[in-house]
């Protein structure tokens, strides 16, 4: 199970965390993914993805502050590790390579035959 391959949603999560920078914790990650129009996901589904990414070593997390609105529970901030960034680059390169090999004509949308 644990390889260096990124799942589609994992890639999305990593990129979102990079977009958010220092403010990446559960609530903001979810909001950002939703805002980008990608999809609605449950907090539990996000947790599964994040903990798997952490197991793979693509993510680091550290405990944050607890606020009133959170009922006194501390936040957990996430941060992409070098390994995670490498994996992202690799995924992008693979994709770019494939895109570059497709002739333009074949990418044209065809509506009727």
């Amino acid at each position, binding site marked *: 199970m644990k390889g260096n391959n990124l799942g589609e949603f994992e890639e999305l999560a990593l990129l979102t965390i990079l977009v958010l920078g220092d403010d990446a*914790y*559960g*609530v903001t990650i*979810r909001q950002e993914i939703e805002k980008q129009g990608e999809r609605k996901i*449950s*907090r*539990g*589904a996000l*947790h*599964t993805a994040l*903990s*798997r990414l952490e197991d793979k070593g693509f993510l680091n997390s550290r405990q944050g502050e*607890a*606020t009133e*609105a*959170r*009922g006194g*529970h*501390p*936040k*957990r901030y996430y941060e992409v590790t070098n390994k995670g960034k490498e994996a992202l680059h690799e995924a992008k390169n693979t994709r770019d390579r494939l895109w570059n090999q497709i002739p333009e004509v074949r990418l044209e949308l065809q509506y009727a035959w």
Partner: protein
Amino acid sequence: MHGSQHPSEFYQRLFRWFCKDEFFDELQGDLEEEFYFNLKELGTKQAQAIYKKEVLKMIRPSVIKRFKLSNNSIFYDMFKINAKLALRNLVKHKLYTAINIGGLAVSIAVCAILLLYVNSETNYDNYHPNGDRTYRMALDRFYPDHTSYYAITPFSIAEQAAMDFPEIEDFTRIFPAGFGVNVTYNNETFLENNIIASQANFFEFFGIKLLDGNAEKIFDVPNSIILSEDMQLNTLAKKIL
């Protein structure tokens, strides 16, 4: 409980109970933060509903605790040994394992297919009001050396049969009016494969409801036509009308 300004107590406790301790603070904190955000944006009722849904969606392997089957360690050890024994036996007797598991799989599959088949057989076209009393008349012709079976009967047989057999309460007849009729209108040609001629009580007889038009008067005009929704002619008709 309704209208409370805090997440549902019961769901909070439920979550506390099944969530792994190391994740609880983070997840409960996030859920609560979202709850109070939703409370302002969407109101109490929706915020509560979303909170409950989120908690239920937390029931996934990565979040829930590993529950011990029993606190009795002897029971647990015994279970482990038995499970191991069973697995080893399966591996040792590969042929019998294959026969047993394969046979079980095939029989479950057959059973499932049978159920599906029976289910579909008993559940289609149920809308006919008198489906249990409706019969199709067929024709068997007996010759000295063989018998021929026809699904078509002469047109007049229905009226005569209704006179001869008082059991026949009502009848309707259909007649295929053409297989593959080309209908052309404004340079557009449609191929219609299932045009059927019938008599006035057809729709009442089979309990078919009309989406549009007057059910009483549809057969008042000679050579009138009734379109079904999936007919290509229907697209044309919508354009004209």
